[in-house]
């Protein structure tokens, strides 16, 4: 397969030449996915933590529903968002279709279930450890939520990365609601899909390599933040 060597060459030359089109696409990819992940964190983490801490009727249903939504097909999300944001749809007046904002909305919907579910799991485990202590100190469940999220922050980085992974790699939904418009809504994944449909497999794979490098970069960054503090996590000397 000569495509592979060509792909690496393509990726290399794209990176070395600092191709301005590539830079634009990468910037848009990162901004859309980062904003989406941040928004999903703001929604998903309190939601997940609340599911872990509060006991209310229907909690199991919500929990199972949310984790099922992790497998939500992006195309379906894209379609639903399209129908909502279309000029003929209920939110058409906002004129958001084929904008980065529409892509962010789609990614938020895809990422919230992941972050909420992983957060629920982390916080649930933490809550087993913390519940008596926090209640003894007089913390209400509402006061416990931010405490648990903050104390679970190093485990929650993984949830964020999982969410980011889903967002940055997603193609089906952003293709539909973004439209893959050059210089407007074209991101890494839709650009790759376009190059594949042009039959330029080497360039597509080259872009894929660039995407992978970005993903690796973000993960390395996250682990650099996580590592030093994790090392001094519970050293519970003398615990029976």
């Amino acid at each position, binding site marked *: 397969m000569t495509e592979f060597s060509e792909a690496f060459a393509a990726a290399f030359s794209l990176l070395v030449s600092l191709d301005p089109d590539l830079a634009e696409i990468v910037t848009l990819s990162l901004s859309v996915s980062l904003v989406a992940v941040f928004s999903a964190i*703001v929604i998903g983490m309190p939601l997940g933590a609340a599911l872990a801490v509060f006991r209310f009727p229907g909690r199991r249903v919500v929990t199972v529903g949310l984790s099922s939504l992790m497998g939500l097909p992006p195309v379906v999300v894209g379609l639903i968002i399209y129908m909502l944001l*279309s*000029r003929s749809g209920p939110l058409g007046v906002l004129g958001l279709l*084929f904008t980065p904002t529409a892509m962010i909305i789609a990614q938020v919907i895809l990422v919230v279930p992941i972050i909420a579910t992983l957060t629920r799991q982390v916080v649930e485990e933490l809550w087993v450890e913390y519940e008596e202590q926090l209640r003894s100190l007089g913390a209400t469940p509402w006061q416990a939520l931010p405490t648990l999220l903050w104390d679970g922050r190093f485990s929650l980085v993984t949830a964020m990365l999982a969410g980011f992974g889903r967002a940055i790699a997603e193609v089906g939904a952003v293709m539909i609601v973004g*439209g893959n418009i050059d210089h407007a809504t074209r991101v890494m994944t839709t650009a790759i899909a376009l190059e*594949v449909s042009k*039959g330029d497999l080497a360039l597509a794979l080259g872009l894929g390599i660039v995407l992978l490098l970005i993903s690796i970069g973000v993960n390395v960054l996250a682990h650099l933040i996580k590592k030093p503090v994790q090392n001094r996590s519970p050293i519970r000397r003398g615990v029976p």
Partner: protein
Amino acid sequence: MRPFLSMALCLSLSLLFLAGTARGEPAFITLASTTSTQNSGLFTDILPRFTRMTGIGVRVVAVGTGQAIRLARNGDADVLLVHHRPSEEQFVADNHGIERQDVMYNDFVIVGPAADPAGIQGMHDAAAALKKVAAASTVFVSRGDESGTHKKERGLWNIADIDPAAGSGAWYRQTGSGMGATLNAASAMDGYALADRGTWMSFKNKGALTVMVEGDPRLFNPYGVILVNPDTHPHIKADEGRRFIAWITSKAGQAAIAAFRIGDEPLFYPHTP
């Protein structure tokens, strides 16, 4: 404390983003078009000229003709540029669009593996060629996505009086995706496929595929441009859309289409050279 910080950060980022998109370019239109025009590189070549001249950006959403018409009907595009005359006329008749004009044309070709197991190379009757493909039960890869090309292909099967759906999954493979993906599949399966010449010429993964059948008048492939009806969709940028249509059908626009070539060969022929 920290959650509030991140929330504030997030909100401000989102607002920044919204503001950015709201300002956007000074003016632009959304053009719903087909994958063939985009994948061939035509738009990348000619649209900057229009933008330089008028200051109006063109945002191309390239999907199959069926989906493009759907987008336009929903009012999600200002201008429609597609290649299936009956659908276009229906669109105008249904009052979704106005001022339809011919823009350019090229033709479809039937491509296939150089080994040519169905023995159709050099034929000029597309329907007869398809008959032979069906008779030999050699792999034929179809778009299967209600695109202009797919509709054209179905028309040819009709003329040949063959229902390929009977062989679906066996020798008749429907990819349900764009022209490029379909050619990729044909290349990988050593199958035949109907392709528009623009995409075919600019396609880079031909493998063993070559042109088998061309020159049948029934393979004619005209492109038309339509303004989405501003009476149905008041938000349509009718002025900018009309300027685009006027330009692409003008001498300058037609010359730009004629000047777009790969190697020495033109991919599209202007309607009024």
